[in-house]
């Protein structure tokens, strides 16, 4: 095995960090945190996804245009989630006749 076959340090460190985060998120799920369990799980998932995007997908090395394209999907997803939830979250404020599922 020649020396230039070694994986770059950044991706080895990322892989180790992803495995550590996986262990952390599984253990964290069993802690009695109430609603905090979901928050913890989603924060760890977001950190894992960011690591994959920045290091494995090499976004940290890309030009601003590629970055903008990469963020676009998540931006529109954010709008979709925001509008959908402002709908479902406010339905209880309206008369029962307008309730969802009736």
């Amino acid at each position, binding site marked *: 095995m020649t020396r*230039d*076959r070694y*994986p*770059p340090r950044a*991706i*080895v460190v*990322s*892989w180790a960090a*992803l*495995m550590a985060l*996986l262990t952390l*998120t*599984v253990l964290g*799920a*069993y*802690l*009695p*945190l109430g609603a905090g*369990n*979901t928050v913890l*799980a*989603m924060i*760890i*998932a977001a950190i*894992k*996804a960011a690591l*994959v*995007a920045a*290091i*494995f*997908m*090499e976004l940290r090395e*890309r*030009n601003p*245009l*590629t970055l903008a*394209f*990469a963020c*676009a*999907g*998540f931006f*529109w*997803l954010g709008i*979709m*989630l925001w509008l*959908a*939830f402002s709908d*479902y979250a406010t339905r209880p404020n309206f008369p029962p006749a307008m309730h969802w*599922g009736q």
Partner: protein
Amino acid sequence: MRQQHDVAQLGMWVFLATEVLFFGGLILSYCVYRSAYPAAFAEAARHTKIIIGAANTAVLLTSSFLVAWAVAIVKLRQSRFAAVLLWGAGVLGVIFLVLKGIEYGMEYDEHLLPGLDFFYPGEQARAVGLFFSFYIVATGLHAIHVAVGIVVLGVIGARARQRAYSDAYHSPVTVAGLYWHFVDMVWIFLFALIYLPGRSG
């Protein structure tokens, strides 16, 4: 060549943006029903096989690591070793699907798969059915993406073995890598939404 490489990357990101919204729509439906039936979703999630789910997460993350390594190597020089890494990643993809199949088999035996054989005792049956409907559609669509990725990795690996890629030309490897990492990223979120809720109760 530099510009061609950038354009190939950009094109893949445009495709991935459509995929974000595709899986995002599914996840939105999950969030709406989970907020409507929080207790039932926690109860349903406890029936998922967290050991297989966690093992599969590790398998996909490691597979992504191998692809990132292969990309790093082909960017430096022609290398047949990159083929070993790409095929290794593909083999891990196959292991993922085998484990997923075993998991589906266990859930089928427990009558948890809506549309095939669903029976759940208790008053939460309908909402638990909603959870498992999301489960089978989301993981099924993800598994199709994994299967496509395995074929792509196989083909790209074969081309790498023929020394088709070098520091001057390696867009197919990086673009295939982007797709594979994205499939990994989708699983990261599916794992958190499907396997982790309801464990501390």
